[in-house]
């Protein structure tokens, strides 16, 4: 019988039940969505990296490793597997595209997963295994011929298979490129035999020898710590080497960064929804049991045991919790899938073959706890009504006596209109309802400001960085040719820079303590390369010190005027420099001008005269096509790779599209949250004031006057909610940026449109819900309402 009552009561309070279920669905959906996202990302990437034998360490020597070096290293205790490895950017003949030409001698290190086509053959003389996304975008099919050129080697072969490799899980040309662009950049694996043939073809009888020194990298699978492997490697090979752990690779560290982002979002966002869901539950269950108090008393008087009555009312909360959680589970899977699918948000960034979704056990536990907590709220609400004797329970609920407000002592109080007084007292009399309404409005506003602000911040940063700061049209990469000395390469760079009036840079991998950081030395001629200060202003590179990016400054606690020492990898040189300023940068870097670099000395030798000072990029204002027609390009073209500014900017378009989609979803969530919370509370307020409104109607108030009273109260709360929500939203954005500070150096920026849209939207939601609720006025049955006892 009580089950029937349960179903009918749910029907009676459907607005409240539906709104609570929606809030719980949203809360649990967002919680599961973001947490499943980072857990699934972790599991999928770990599996992919392990399947493709992603290297734990990369030992780098620009002069190349011989076969005997590999043997010495393989013999080191703790090194499980090692392979000579090369990955260089090669031009695709007949296109403007670039492929990472990759060879690994041992397929058990830094290999790939075959997506389609023939198995890899390490003896193949013409087989090429191409990145599937690049093939798809460039319409390359299995069996198609492919020619890549690197320096003056030319490798021509046939695409035998389409692949995905862990080494290129995040397939970007270099650290300055934030997003992959599968149209213009990919990778191709060829066999060592094919590479050797190309070298022999070029060097003839010296080919064998040249090949033996060709591999600049040995990739290693090992459980040793970085310091252990560094020590053991240096002992085995007898020299200081650049050793990069997997944490220092883009693929690994960025994927981990994505997980961190997911964790942050999974921690911050659901709190808003879940807190509102729980508070809604508290207020609604309280109202429900208050309204049902005499029924509770009747059941008690009839002889139904307290336990049964509380079980009955507790089952409402359980019912809401279970339904909300089940729907939330569905929403969670959807949110997770939305972010984590090969064609979705993450698919434009990370490429891997499997995109399975995982629900971690602790998420299920949290959901179970939330349901338990909601049920407890239900239990506590009814327990309060059950206390005392049956006759106590039979008496209708008496709200607390109303006391005068503090502001009533003010003389101005008497000048207020009746409506203002009525609304003010109502707000304070029903504090929990007013508070909840405020929370709903703040939540709505925070989400709107957060979503739109995120967009402003990201687009602002990208626009400022690539439009105002980086003004070059084309970036020319100078390949590090083993044949040329540093001085020769730099001479080429100076020649190109002077003939194109370009800026140039040398990126030197250095350590401050342990982690490698890029020390970028810039020669600024025309100023197409600029810098963004920590307060997001365009600044010039100082000539009396270094510009330190914000992450480095934070990591090493550097202040302006501080001195710090860097040591280029693979050398014992030490350069001490002074902090002249801070900048916002895409990658962790220290930037110095060439003038200042000249003054930096190690053992009496200036940094610019050191062997590590190799200019690798020239930035010019001519576009790619124009540049290709120039004489200077013609004379050096074999050692050059060109990347246009628009290629970089274009690579952000996909990212921005997806960001925009995410923002639309968040805006929808914000509006749903606002509408659901405000409607639920609006209906509650309407029910509570039903009798008062009926009285006003009888006295002679018009429907619209009463409606105006209700809407006015809503608007007051909206003004307060918007004001608090605006600051809270900016606060949340700042917290997000601090939490994500290890990845981005963006500054929170809010455009005028964000202010206008979020304020108008929140007011709009409040007004529409207010109108919806006040439209109910017309249905007030004065006769019925005024019959009952007070």
């Amino acid at each position, binding site marked *: 019988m009580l089950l029937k009552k349960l179903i009918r009561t749910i029907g009676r309070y459907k607005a409240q039940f539906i709104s609570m279920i929606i809030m719980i669905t949203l809360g649990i959906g967002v919680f599961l969505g973001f947490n499943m996202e980072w857990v699934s990302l972790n599991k999928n990437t770990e599996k992919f990296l392990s399947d493709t034998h992603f290297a734990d360490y990369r030992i780098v020597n620009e002069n190349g490793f011989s076969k005997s070096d590999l043997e010495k290293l393989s013999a080191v205790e703790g090194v499980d597997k090692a392979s000579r490895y090369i990955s260089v950017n090669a031009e695709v003949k007949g296109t403007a595209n670039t492929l990472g030409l990759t060879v690994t001698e041992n397929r058990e290190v830094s290999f790939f997963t075959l997506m389609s086509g023939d198995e890899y053959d390490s003896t193949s003389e013409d087989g090429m295994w191409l990145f599937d996304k690049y093939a798809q975008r460039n319409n390359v099919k299995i069996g198609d011929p492919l020619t890549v050129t690197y320096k003056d080697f030319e490798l021509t072969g046939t695409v035998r298979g389409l692949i995905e490799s862990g080494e290129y899980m995040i397939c970007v040309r270099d650290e300055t490129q934030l997003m992959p662009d599968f149209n213009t950049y990919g990778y191709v694996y060829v066999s060592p035999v094919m590479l050797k043939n190309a070298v022999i073809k070029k060097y003839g009888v010296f080919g064998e020898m040249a090949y033996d020194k060709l591999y600049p990298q040995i990739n290693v699978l090992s459980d040793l710590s970085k310091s252990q492997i560094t020590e053991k490697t240096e002992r085995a090979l007898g020299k200081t080497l650049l050793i990069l752990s997997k944490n220092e690779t883009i693929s690994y560290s960025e994927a981990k960064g994505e997980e961190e982002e997911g964790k942050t979002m999974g921690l911050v966002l659901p709190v808003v929804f879940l807190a509102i869901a729980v508070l809604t539950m508290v207020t609604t269950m309280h109202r429900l049991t208050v309204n049902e108090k005499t029924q509770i008393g009747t059941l008690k008087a009839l002889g139904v045991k307290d336990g049964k009555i509380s079980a009955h009312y507790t089952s409402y909360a359980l019912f809401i919790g279970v339904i909300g959680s089940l729907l939330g589970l569905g929403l969670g899977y959807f949110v997770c899938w939305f972010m984590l699918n090969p064609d979705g948000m993450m698919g434009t960034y990370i490429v891997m073959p499997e995109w399975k979704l995982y629900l971690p056990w602790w998420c299920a536990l949290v959901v179970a706890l939330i349901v338990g907590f909601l049920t407890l709220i239900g239990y506590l609400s009814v327990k309060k009504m059950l206390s005392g004797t049956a006759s106590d329970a039979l008496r209708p609920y008496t709200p607390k*006596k*109303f006391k*005068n407000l503090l502001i009533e002592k003010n003389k101005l109080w008497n000048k207020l*209109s*009746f*409506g203002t*007084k*009525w609304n003010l*007292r*109502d707000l304070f*009399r029903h504090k929990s309802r007013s508070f909840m309404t405020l929370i709903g409005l703040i939540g709505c506003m925070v989400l709107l400001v957060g979503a739109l602000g995120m967009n402003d911040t990201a687009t602002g940063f990208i626009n400022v960085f690539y439009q105002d700061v980086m003004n070059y049209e084309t970036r020319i990469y100078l390949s590090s040719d083993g044949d040329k000395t540093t001085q020769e390469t730099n001479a080429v760079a100076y020649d190109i820079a002077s003939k194109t009036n370009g800026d140039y840079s040398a990126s030197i991998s250095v350590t401050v303590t342990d982690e490698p950081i890029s020390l970028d030395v810039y020669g600024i001629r025309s100023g197409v390369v600029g810098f963004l200060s920590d307060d997001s202003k365009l600044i010039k590179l100082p000539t009396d010190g270094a510009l330190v990016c914000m992450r480095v400054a934070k990591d090493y606690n550097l202040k302006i005027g501080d001195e710090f020492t860097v040591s280029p990898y693979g050398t014992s040189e030490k350069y001490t420099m002074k902090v002249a300023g801070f900048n916002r940068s895409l990658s962790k870097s220290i930037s110095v001008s060439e003038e200042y670099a000249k003054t930096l000395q190690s053992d009496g030798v200036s940094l610019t005269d050191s062997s590590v000072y190799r200019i690798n990029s020239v930035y010019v204002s001519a576009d790619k096509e124009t540049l290709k027609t120039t004489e200077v390009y013609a004379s050096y073209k074999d050692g050059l790779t060109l990347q246009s500014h628009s290629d970089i900017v274009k690579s952000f378009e996909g990212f921005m599209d997806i960001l925009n989609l995410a923002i639309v979803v968040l805006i929808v969530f914000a509006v749903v949250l606002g509408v659901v919370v405000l409607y639920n509370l609006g209906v509650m307020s309407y029910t509570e004031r039903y*009798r*008062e409104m*009926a*009285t*006003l*109607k*009888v*006295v*002679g*108030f*018009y*429907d*619209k*006057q009463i409606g105006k009273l209700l809407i006015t109260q809503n608007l007051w709360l909206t003004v307060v909610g918007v004001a608090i929500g605006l600051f809270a939203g900016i606060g949340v954005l700042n917290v997000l940026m601090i939490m994500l500070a290890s990845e981005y150096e963006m500054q929170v920026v809010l455009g005028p449109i964000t202010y206008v849209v979020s304020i108008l939207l929140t007011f709009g939601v409040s007004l529409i819900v207010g109108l919806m609720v006040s439209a109910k006025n*017309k249905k007030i049955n*004065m*006769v019925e309402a*005024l019959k*009952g*006892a*007070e």
Partner: protein
Amino acid sequence: MNIVEMRSVTKRYVAGEHTLNALDGVNLDLEEGKFIVVLGQSGAGKSTLLNLLGGLDSPTEGKIIVDGQDISKLTRDQLAEYRASKVGFVFQFYNLIPTLTVLENVALVKEIAPNALDPKKILEEVGLSDHLNNFPSELSGGEQQRVSIARAIAKNPKILLCDEPTGALDSETGVVVLKLLLSMAKNYGKTIVIVTHNQNIAKMADVVIRVRSGKITSLEENQTPTAVEDIEW
């Protein structure tokens, strides 16, 4: 002069296949300034009669003219205007606004009634000048009903409609309230209609109307109304 004229007034409620004639072709004339009591059993139609007079509801058929105005076909807003200017209500359960003080409960009529009287003066007259700043929950039932009467009078209406005004009060308090109601109505020259099932109240009335099954069964003029204090409760 008649303040109320009802002509063939029918109020029908339809619920599914059942039709209930709460009022069935009622014709009634009420003279201005009189004290009228409507008597009847529960469900007889007396409250329906009062609700129609008060503009809380509209008749299904027929015509109701109050103070020269036909109210049977008014729109919602026109009815609100009518309630604001022509009628004052006193209910069994007072129906005060709990979040407004005594003074504010009465003063709120100033926002809608064009000829509203001074709320303070009226409250003084009903003996509540010491409770102006109290909330309804701080008053006794009788005091609350006095506020309700003050609110009804303060609108300066043509007609006071009271639905079991003493129904929730003990007899002693009921007498005080009735006395007040009558004296206020008299002082301000208001027509007063009380709906009740309490036969005793009828003894005080100028006109007694009996209602049964939606019809008026009798209308008696009482030439010698008994004073409140002389009635045995």
